[in-house]
């Protein structure tokens, strides 16, 4: 690990100033950043520790019905907040399907959003990777690429974004609150992560020094509480990243789907919002035929980026499964194996 300066600013303004210098990086719990630093993939010259910044560890219900989650709220605390889990069940299920209990106890909201791809060539400092080193080439193109992207990729980079949390969030129109050198701004989560195009090294819309201070769920996100699920296929039942995942949230009235929200994970360099599929579902009666049609629409632009054509079919099946489970109704309690299609709990 390269050596660095360690600073622990007392407030947000000092943090932004300290992180605006070239080579500086924010440190939250470090469960992704330290891992990358150990491998020589990230080499910050300064770490700006944000974990003591005041006021960023709260969950607030705002007067307009929205929910504001401070960036330092730990993944486990959010998922286990009973009211949160009741109101945004797919988000809680996605959180609990990610990583391990130890990692969720540490991981922060901002760190989860900003975690880097798990592409093995990105992780191996000896491989060519455009994301790490613009212009170097991409060893994944001819390498082990079963788990790489099928949507929104370019010849420059075929990596996926690994977060589970982000998948239901993007479906529910979550908003990211950012503080930076020129003040505060906000961004739909959908616009936080960038598709690779010609510049895969530009992973997000954040500029140097920008600090995520909070995440907001708009009031409408509550309307899906009764019919919301997250389904995640992994190579083992627990403690593994998604091969493919789907979040489905439905508003069902008088036997018809009034509104649908769909997100896909493990398919692209960003959490993928499947808007065409949502349109297919709007106004329809919830049944298997319309779920399949929606799933086809969601993947209609998909293309294998390597040895991963199977993911296109798998993503459709997982979307159908997520829709079927969501339509059946959110269970009273998150299943024993959150997100798992293999849960032995009835109806899970």
């Amino acid at each position: 690990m390269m050596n660095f300066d360690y600073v622990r600013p007392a407030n947000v303004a000092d943090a932004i100033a300290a992180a605006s210098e070239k080579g500086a990086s924010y440190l939250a719990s470090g469960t992704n950043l330290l891992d990358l630093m150990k491998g020589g993939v990230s080499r910050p010259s300064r770490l700006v520790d944000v974990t003591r910044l005041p006021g960023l560890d709260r969950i607030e219900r705002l007067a307009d019905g929205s929910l504001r989650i401070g960036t330092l709220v730990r993944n486990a605390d959010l998922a286990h907040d009973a009211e949160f889990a009741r109101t945004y069940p797919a988000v809680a299920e996605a959180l609990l399907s990610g990583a391990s209990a130890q990692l969720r106890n540490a991981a922060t909201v901002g760190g989860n959003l900003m975690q880097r791809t798990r592409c093995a060539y990105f992780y191996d400092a000896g491989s060519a990777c455009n994301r790490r080193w613009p212009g170097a080439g991409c060893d994944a193109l001819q390498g082990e690429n079963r788990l790489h992207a099928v949507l929104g990729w370019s010849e420059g980079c075929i990596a996926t974004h690994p977060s589970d949390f982000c998948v239901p969030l993007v479906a529910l129109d979550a908003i990211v609150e950012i503080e930076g050198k020129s003040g505060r701004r906000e961004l739909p989560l959908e616009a936080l992560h960038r598709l690779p195009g010609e510049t895969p090294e530009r992973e997000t819309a954040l500029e140097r020094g920008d600090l995520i201070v909070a995440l907001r769920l708009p009031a409408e996100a509550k309307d899906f509480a009764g019919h919301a699920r997250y389904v995640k296929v992994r190579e083992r039942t627990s403690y593994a990243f998604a091969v493919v995942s789907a979040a489905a949230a439905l508003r069902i009235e008088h036997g018809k789907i009034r509104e649908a929200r769909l997100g896909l994970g493990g398919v692209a360099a960003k959490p993928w919002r499947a808007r065409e599929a949502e349109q297919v579902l709007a106004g329809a009666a919830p049944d298997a035929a319309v779920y399949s049609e929606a799933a086809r629409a969601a993947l209609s632009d998909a293309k294998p980026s390597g040895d991963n054509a199977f993911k296109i079919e798998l993503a459709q099946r997982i979307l159908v499964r997520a829709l079927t489970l969501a339509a059946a109704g959110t269970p009273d309690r998150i299943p024993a194996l959150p997100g798992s299609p293999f849960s032995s709990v009835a109806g899970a």
Partner: protein
Amino acid sequence: MNLPLSLTINGVRREIVLDDPRVTLLDLLRERLDLTGTKKGCDRGQCGACTVLVDGRRINSCLALAISHDGAEITTIEGVGHGGELHPVQAAFIAHDGFQCGFCTPGQIMSGIGLIQEGQAGDDPERVRECMSGNLCRCGAYQGITEAVLEAQSNMTASKQRRSA
């Protein structure tokens, strides 16, 4: 660069000066404080051998920067027994053969203690397995581990009820 930090480790306050900010909590415990009960398996957050409690919560000490935890209370496997008496989770691991080689065991036990405090799993073995999935065991002692955590939890609940009765 000298970085002072103060930690309460197994109930004892320690004033420490780091000469390097890169030291993880795991390396601090093992290499500088001689608390080698906490194990280093992968050093990358993938195995759980390094699990300790920080302010009562289980985390992977290999992916935690020591300096970032200035002021924290740390509990390691060395701090869970009292005098000659084992912690109920330790006793249950012995009773249920919750290990073979023992390498993963300190992490398993710390994780089990954390799990019981979190109170999310109840007496459902499937929830216990899921909530222990962050601890790998290459000897495959999972059956015994699950039974040990379940039994320790029910013993601890029972003795808590006795004490409050």
